[in-house]
């Protein structure tokens, strides 16, 4: 089973996770830019974070045979802090870089005016840079947030096929489906979706435009829920090809619209370095 996790925050995960993911079949990931739990208080923190997503984390993933991509954006939560919003002016520099496969995570957290302004501007940036948009839907008032998301996408004029609306569930899936956008499902140990509910949605509406992700981050989450979902699909009677479509070909098709996927399996040695630093500790083998 080959797996492309289209949404995972690897900067928060350990090398043990990378090893377990590779053993489970994960060969490619997309790491969306998001908030870090501890709020940022200025633009420089975003820049260092973006640099880490494009540099150190891509290198780290490659050490474990996993191709790492990222999406770049000002996230909805921090769009409310006027100390952070000037990062919007710097995004074009980062949206031009290799391995940046979408603008994201954008969207709503508390449905404020500041969030809507940042969201709209970033949907425009996606159009200007020929990139898809990756949209987070809120934990609270999710259905209203999803409706408003689709209205903004239509107003900006971004084709629905270039938009992934993420963290969906049984209540929000149909409006996104009807709009023609891609549907993302985050499979969590306790909240959001679980593998069996995911399988039920696939049985009901089919495999088109569906992405399954672990959204693993610094909270209680599990980077192997993509694999668990694949196993649950097989147990429910889906074929190997069905699983490959959901867990590999669908994310390749969506993010491939950027023209910037880097899917050759990284050929690396454990002693390789990124800017001179390795993931080993202590003396380098030489």
């Amino acid at each position, binding site marked *: 089973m080959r797996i492309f996790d289209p949404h995972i925050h690897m900067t928060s995960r350990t090398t043990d996770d990378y090893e377990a993911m590779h053993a489970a079949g994960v060969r490619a990931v997309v790491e969306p830019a998001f908030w870090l739990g501890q709020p940022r208080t200025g633009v420089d923190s975003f820049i260092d974070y973006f*640099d880490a997503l494009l*540099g150190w984390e891509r290198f780290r993933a490659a050490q474990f045979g996993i191709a790492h991509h990222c999406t770049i954006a000002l996230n909805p939560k921090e769009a409310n802090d006027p100390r952070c919003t000037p990062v919007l002016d*710097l995004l074009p520099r980062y949206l031009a870089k290799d391995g940046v496969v979408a603008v994201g995570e954008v969207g709503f957290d508390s449905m404020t005016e500041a969030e809507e302004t940042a969201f709209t501007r970033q949907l425009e940036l996606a159009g200007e840079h020929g990139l898809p948009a990756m949209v987070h839907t809120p934990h609270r008032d999710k259905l209203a947030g999803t409706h408003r998301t689709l209205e903004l996408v239509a107003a900006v004029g971004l084709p629905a096929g270039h938009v992934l609306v993420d963290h969906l569930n049984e209540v929000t899936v149909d409006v996104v489906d009807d709009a023609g956008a891609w549907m993302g499902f985050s499979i969590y140990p306790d909240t959001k979706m679980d593998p069996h509910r995911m399988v039920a949605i696939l049985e009901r509406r089919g495999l088109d435009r569906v992405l399954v992700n672990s959204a693993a981050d610094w909270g209680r989450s599990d980077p192997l829920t993509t694999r668990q979902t694949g196993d649950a699909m097989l147990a429910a009677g889906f074929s190997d090809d069905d699983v490959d479509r959901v867990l590999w070909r669908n994310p390749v098709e969506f993010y491939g619209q950027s023209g910037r996927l880097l899917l050759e399996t990284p050929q690396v040695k454990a002693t390789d*370095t990124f*800017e*001179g630093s390795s993931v080993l500790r202590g003396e380098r083998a030489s």
Partner: protein
Amino acid sequence: MTTLDEQTEQRLVAAETAVRSDPTRVRSLFPAAGRDIGRTRTAPGAAPGEVRLEDVVRVRLLATLGEALAEDPDTLAREVADLYRFGDAAERRAVLLGLATLVDAGRGERAALLVHDALRTNDVRLVAAALGPAGAALLDADAFRQAVLKCLFVGVPLDLVAGLDQRADAPLRTMVASYADERRAAGRAVPDDALTLLDPAGPDAPTQES
């Protein structure tokens, strides 16, 4: 020297034209240059001196930026420093290789900040690019000696250090001799470049004392 094929040259000329008409376009064209204009197809190796197609393309874009902003050296210095600040390792390397653009703008002290930043990393391709002709000239004697020692540590061949023959002095040889002693004490090999620096004529040549 890496040469550009006709199509790459055409794409580069189009990008240069865009930079001339609006110099801020370099902010997107420079990072995207490898993908949109041209790059060496093989993955970047660890060879510090390898000149890649994307290096050549980006240095040309920098030179064009220098021409476009020749009348406004402050803006030029800021744009170049920002390309470095917001650049990934490949972009930073190209800024260092093209530093003459910034030095000519009469803002050597800003260029020196970039060179010092690169020398704080352990990335051999950045360290090597920082010690090219434009970068090495910005280092005072102390910083130059430390940079040479760093090259020995991280494995940058000393033939990539501009001006070493003229600037290798007694204090540098003392530092390198001490480094060689430490390597021997630890039972490790001393890099050939260190031995050559300590004894330029080679082990078979008569010493000055004899």
